[in-house]
């Protein structure tokens, strides 16, 4: 037995030291082909069918392979014709007309005509396809697609859809009746090879020509290595085996910066937000007095005032984040309300607000009017160092108010189970990834009836007057034709959210990227895919 235990100790010690010092085996998934660009994606794409894309990495493959009628320019944030030569929207916003460019071809050399475009749009709208894009038409069943000529496509909408142009950025035009899962495309690249858990290889589509009139993509191909280890990704980038990193963690950004300043860029605040919120779901399995705190505006505002957002940005993101007070990032200049009077850091004001709301201090500990000590847990996801650091910083910030906070990091499935099903949590710290600068894309977050209305999901009727007002304003911005009216409605929602603090916004993480000096043609944009949105213009210096 003694020998057994000793062996156990030795074995465990070996495992601990191996875990502590082991570095991943550094090797590329496959040799680089001539003229090929290489970067990583975090996991295997769930599908190559462009109509069924529902995850980030499948979306990357679709972006690189799909030919679309309209392209949302990530740099100018404007919709531009791509396969379409021109497009127009009727006065009532219910009819979209596309005129295709002449001599369009698929990657197999066959001609691309209006029938192909119409078939591709109808396929997305077909309930049997179960395409997530269909929902963006609001009433997909009522949409009609016509082809009055060989190069004209008309889409009739049953109702006006805000930002309808951007929806066509997500619809790949495929050969009619021959869906090929990216093997035959009208975009810059074609799927050439896929090795599960290793890589996705794309080759240049020789028939592609961009709207600007340039020929096929400059790079001979793209290899997307499937790798979720940032350590390994950074090392391979340093060795010149990866050409870019699109979402660099702040500590690796600093590491690369210390070695080669020219390879990294901080593009400024992203559209993404990091926020915490309290569980206000009436049936949540938490004590009634906690529900009373969480639904008390003064409590939420006091918590918000006690948080040092500058420290969160400086420490958790090493300065590569911007303190956040609202849900629209300053990167979204058209919609961000810079005049917001959100609660700023002021611990004295937070204490005064709590005292006015009936809270009191027993020694250094905060108690509510009934004498319950104020303590709660903040849930966040495991594996996100910045979030865990923010939660620990907030833990100390709230200790200044006498609030005892426990930080709990759970793996993502367990976290989602609690957030979406059991509602068994007190507070949560998570981020929201915004890919669309138009606030209309956040309807599912703000409408009180939505299951994604996180602090109190799927309300039958708005629980409070201010939630009812948010519903009204969001519905108004989605239906009005007047831009100034839309802006006013969205500004009002920003004001209400800043005033009521259902989400306590913390930071807007900056977009951090690394670009190989050999890579040419890069024009970084804040919107994803930030470095490869103009992939057809990218090439390696020695490729020519």
């Amino acid at each position, binding site marked *: *037995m*003694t*020998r*057994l*235990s*000793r062996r*156990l*100790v030795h074995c*465990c*010690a070996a*495992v*601990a*030291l191996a*875990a*502590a*010092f082991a*570095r991943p085996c550094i090797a590329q998934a496959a040799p680089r082909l001539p003229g090929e660009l290489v970067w990583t994606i975090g996991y295997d794409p769930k599908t190559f069918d462009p109509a069924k894309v529902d995850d980030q990495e499948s979306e990357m493959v679709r972006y690189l392979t799909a030919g679309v009628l309209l392209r949302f320019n990530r740099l100018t944030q404007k919709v531009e014709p791509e396969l379409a030569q021109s497009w127009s929207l009727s006065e009532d916003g219910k009819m979209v007309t596309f005129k295709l460019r002449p001599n369009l071809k698929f990657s197999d050399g066959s001609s691309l005509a209006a029938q192909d475009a119409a078939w591709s749009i109808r396929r997305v709208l077909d309930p049997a396809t179960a395409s997530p894009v269909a929902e963006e038409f609001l009433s997909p069943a009522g949409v009609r697609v016509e082809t009055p000529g060989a190069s004209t496509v008309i889409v009739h909408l049953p109702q006006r859809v805000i930002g309808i142009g951007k929806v066509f950025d997500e619809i790949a035009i495929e050969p009619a009746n021959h869906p090929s899962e990216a093997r035959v495309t009208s975009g810059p690249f074609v799927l050439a090879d896929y090795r599960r858990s290793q890589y996705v290889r794309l080759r240049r589509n020789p028939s592609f020509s961009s709207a600007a009139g340039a020929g096929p993509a400059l790079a001979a191909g793209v290899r997307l290595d499937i790798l979720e280890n940032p*350590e390994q990704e*950074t*090392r391979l980038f340093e060795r010149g085996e990866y050409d870019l990193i699109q979402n660099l*963690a702040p*500590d*690796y950004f*600093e*590491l690369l910066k*210390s070695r080669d300043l020219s390879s990294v860029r901080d593009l400024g605040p992203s559209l993404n937000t990091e926020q915490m919120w309290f569980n206000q779901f009436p049936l949540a399995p938490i004590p009634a007095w906690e529900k009373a705190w969480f639904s008390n505006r003064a409590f939420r505002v006091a918590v918000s005032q006690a948080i*040092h957002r500058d*420290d969160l940005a*400086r*420490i958790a993101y090493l300065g590569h984040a911007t303190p956040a007070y609202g849900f629209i990032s300053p990167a979204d200049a058209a919609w961000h309300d810079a005049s917001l009077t959100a609660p700023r850091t002021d611990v004295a004001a937070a204490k005064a607000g709590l005292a006015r709301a009936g809270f009191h201090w027993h020694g250094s500990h905060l108690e509510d009017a009934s004498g319950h000590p104020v*303590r*709660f*847990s903040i*849930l966040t996801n*495991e*594996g996100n*160092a910045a979030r*865990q*650091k923010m*939660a*620990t*910083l907030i*833990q*100390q910030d709230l200790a200044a108010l006498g609030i005892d906070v*426990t*930080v*709990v*990091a*759970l*793996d993502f499935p*367990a976290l989602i189970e609690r957030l979406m099903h059991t509602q*068994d*949590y*007190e507070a949560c710290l998570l981020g929201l990834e915004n890919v669309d600068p138009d606030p209309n894309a956040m309807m599912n977050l703000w409408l009180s009836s939505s299951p994604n209305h996180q602090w109190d999901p799927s309300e039958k009727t708005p629980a409070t007057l201010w939630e009812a007002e948010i519903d009204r304003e969001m519905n108004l911005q989605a239906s009005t034709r007047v831009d100034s009216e839309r802006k006013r409605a969205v500004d009002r929602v920003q004001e209400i959210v800043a005033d009521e603090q259902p989400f306590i916004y913390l930071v807007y993480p900056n977009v951090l990227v690394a670009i190989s000096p050999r890579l040419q043609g890069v024009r970084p944009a804040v919107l994803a895919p930030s470095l490869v949105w103009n992939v057809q213009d990218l090439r390696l210096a020695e490729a020519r």
Partner: protein
Amino acid sequence: MRLKLVAAFLLAAVILASAIIVARPGASYSRQDRSSLLAGASLRHPAGTDALGRDRLVRVAAALLLSLVGAFLASALTTSIAAGMGTLAAFAPRPIGALCLLGCDVFLALPWMFLLMMVRSALPLSASPLSSAAITFLVLAALGWPACARAVHRGALNLRRADWMLHARASGLRGIQLVRCVTPNLIPLLLPQFLVSIPAFVIAEANLGAIGLGIGEPLPSWGGMLLELDNSAMLFATRWVYFPVALLVLVLLLLEAVAPSDLEA
């Protein structure tokens, strides 16, 4: 023997130094000095600070004490359970003894890492960091006894067959009287087991912490500090991130040296 004494002395010195570091006025393992992040050694922070500006020396000292106290208690619990089960299996009627041994085998066959993950994720979210530490060591103890119990069973069986025990039973000794006779004779078997289990539990807690199943923030733990080594960006920021692992190795070596060797056992 001299090596054991030196090791015991050094171990005591490390524990004493840690206790002094943690107990000295103003020391806090959780206070964040936000103006001094990942700092190197200084008078204020002799072993620098971590990424949140917390004093690394105080955190390492607190982690060492917490780990040793937890491992000591867990080892005591494991040894006690093993002693009880092993003795019961040896002295109880044969069917009960067989049942006890079967229980040991079932426990040995359990996927304990999976069980630990289940128990940790089932903990209430509001469980304090200290509770999570206590539960971690309790679970380790609850899962660590079966191998030890089998060893105790063999020792107790030998005792049962010993001539003096036959005499004692023939003289009419029963129940608690027999236990009183047997326990002192099991101590030479239990003590090494107890001592050997301590480093096993220390390293088990460190491993759990390194995979995110250990003690919650802001309480320091070996595992939490080892996590820093997983990030090369951190390694370049300050070499003091190696300090916890260096001390962990030293403490494990000292514990190993203090515990009886195989031959002695």
